[in-house]
């Protein structure tokens, strides 16, 4: 299942991994609705590498 993130694109211009994650959703619709609320917030799928690290830590 894909995990969707709302990230603040202004927190990192170069490295996507350094973008601040505002919220995490299971549904892209919810993520999209939240991203539209603020300029500079973007929707992206949670990077696979980060998912694996998080799952290993749990």
């Amino acid at each position: 299942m894909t995990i969707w993130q709302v990230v603040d694109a202004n927190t990192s211009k170069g490295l996507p991994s350094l973008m601040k994650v505002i919220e995490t959703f299971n549904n892209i619709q919810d993520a999209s609705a939240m991203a539209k609320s603020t300029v500079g917030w973007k929707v992206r799928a949670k990077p696979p590498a980060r998912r694996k690290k998080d799952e290993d830590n749990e």
Partner: protein
Amino acid sequence: MKNVVLVLTMLLMGTTTAYAGSQCINSHDGTLEARKNMRVGPNHTLYGDICNSWRPNVWRPVPRVAPPPTQRHGSKWQLCVNGVDISNGGRCSVNDHTWWNHGQHARPITLKGPQAFDVLRRGSILSNNRNWEGWTTYLVKYFGHQRHGGTRHSRLYNCRVSPNGNWAECTSTTY
């Protein structure tokens, strides 16, 4: 003494020139002298026509013939400004998109369901909107297309996701 050295130098240069560039010596070089050919031995003398047959690999410039105007019009090379061929004022048969795709017409691709979600997952979502029916639309830059030669070709997709988020469709743009 200087004259002797000069003569010897000129002789050496002449010999080098004669045997370095061509494979044989002929008598059609503007002189009446029939010189020895080193490739066939000191006692053989080769003259013009015979000599030519001994050098099949000698590079000769290929004459360039300009194509007639009818063939030029068939060429893919055009100089176009806003879709107009400035060489003849006609309409450009090769548009910018075909040009940048090396002559290949990129057909729009429509992906549905899991494949469309794959584009959303792997691509970069550039913008998103929600229409009045509850569908969300996304402009996605996707880098996944592998082309010949190992390079990847990015494409822009217009995607839309159903109100419940369980169905997605993506159509590639033509640019």
